């Protein structure tokens, strides 16, 4: 199993029945492939639909039906399409149970940076600031480190996405929960030791007596 699949499978275990969930562009979209059997989760795409499905067969694409990255999708029975103000009213108004977003950095207080690398990458925040400010639970799905450089750091060096801390961070090495006391190491990936995680994390981690392996 590659790192992305592992992260997506672990995040999928955070899904709950009969909830509304928004998946960010990139790695987070993979989570939709691992919804536990029998569970009904409504996925929102911020560009204006609840209840989208996978890309239709070749030649069946609808130019008026895409995900937030512009990729073709389908609509499931019972889907609902809406404008951008409604989309963000759902996000900001407490109607969104969970969002899964990518991250560039998370700091010791659980603050996220994911939209700008000064001088290098100007992506723009898109919907990320609204999602972190408004979703009930914010789960970050990201690689633990970028080519050996820690992404879970004492203080953000990149511009923050929101003042509010995220709820959970799932990486290819660990599950980390920001709490008022600091970042708690909740789980480790199969075959990964606590020492390996600490070596690639510059933020202080609180270590409970036991740090079990992830269940996927």
């Amino acid at each position: 199993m590659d790192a992305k699949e592992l992260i997506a499978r672990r995040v999928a275990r955070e899904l709950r029945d009969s909830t509304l969930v928004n998946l960010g562009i990139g790695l987070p979209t993979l989570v939709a492939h691992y919804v536990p059997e029998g569970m009904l989760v409504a996925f929102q795409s911020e560009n204006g639909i609840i209840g989208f499905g996978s890309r239709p067969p070749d030649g069946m694409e609808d130019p008026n039906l895409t995900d937030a990255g512009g990729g073709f999708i389908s609509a499931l029975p019972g889907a609902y399409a809406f404008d951008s103000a409604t989309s963000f009213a759902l996000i900001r108004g407490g109607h969104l149970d969970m969002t899964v977003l990518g991250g560039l950095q998370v700091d010791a207080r659980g603050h996220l940076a994911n939209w700008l690398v000064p001088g290098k990458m100007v992506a723009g925040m898109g919907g990320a600031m609204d999602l972190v400010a408004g979703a009930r639970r914010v789960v970050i799905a990201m690689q633990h480190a970028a080519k050996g450089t820690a992404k879970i750091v004492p203080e953000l060096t990149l511009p923050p996405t929101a003042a509010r801390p995220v709820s959970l961070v799932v990486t290819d090495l660990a599950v980390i929960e920001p709490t008022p006391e600091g970042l708690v190491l909740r789980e480790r990936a199969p075959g990964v030791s606590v020492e390996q995680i600490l070596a690639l994390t510059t933020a202080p981690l609180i270590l409970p007596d036991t740090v079990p392996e992830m269940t996927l």
Partner: protein
Amino acid sequence: MRKAISAEQAAAMVPDGASVMVGGFMGVGSPHRVLAALVARGARGLTVIGNDTSRAGHGIGVLIDAGCVARCIVSHIGLNPVTQQKLIAGEMEVELVPQGTLAERIRAGGAGLGGVLTPTGIGTVVQDGKQVVTIDGRDFLLEKPLRADVALLHCYEADYYANLTYRLTAQNFNPLMAMAADLVIAEPDEVVPIGVIPPDHVRTPGVLVTHLVKRPH
């Protein structure tokens, strides 16, 4: 009964230096024929308000490629390297606005509101220079309304009164922008007789639409 205009006539109504709202999300729900006509007429100095600058050669991206845009107010430019290059080279200004805030600022502009209060952006660079208003102990940013000289929309159906419908994710910012500009030009995929669109299905009433662009043959 309305008289439809050509995409070229529509482009001629957008003066150089105008502020222009353009519907669409990554080009989905953008008025592609009018955008092409704006490029062909060599528009310059536009301020473009839209969700994103799409990708190079597509949607709002065609205006960026052709140098029509002096400034854009958008939530995302990450999928268009040309916008990023022009921003870094100082050839274009970019104001980045959180997507939900952009939608609400446009809605406020069309709804006669003095602005909106949103928690989005508190504690980030988006807060810089803005008033923070505390309501019942919670902080909000005061975000001002946005209006434009022209709104360029895409719709699915238009009837002869220019009542509009949208389809699926091509709706996005279009119905909001239809309320927030002095001149509203809509480019339909289909034109249908009056009465074909049931009243409950009309998303933008024809009274808001200044001009309808002819459908392609």
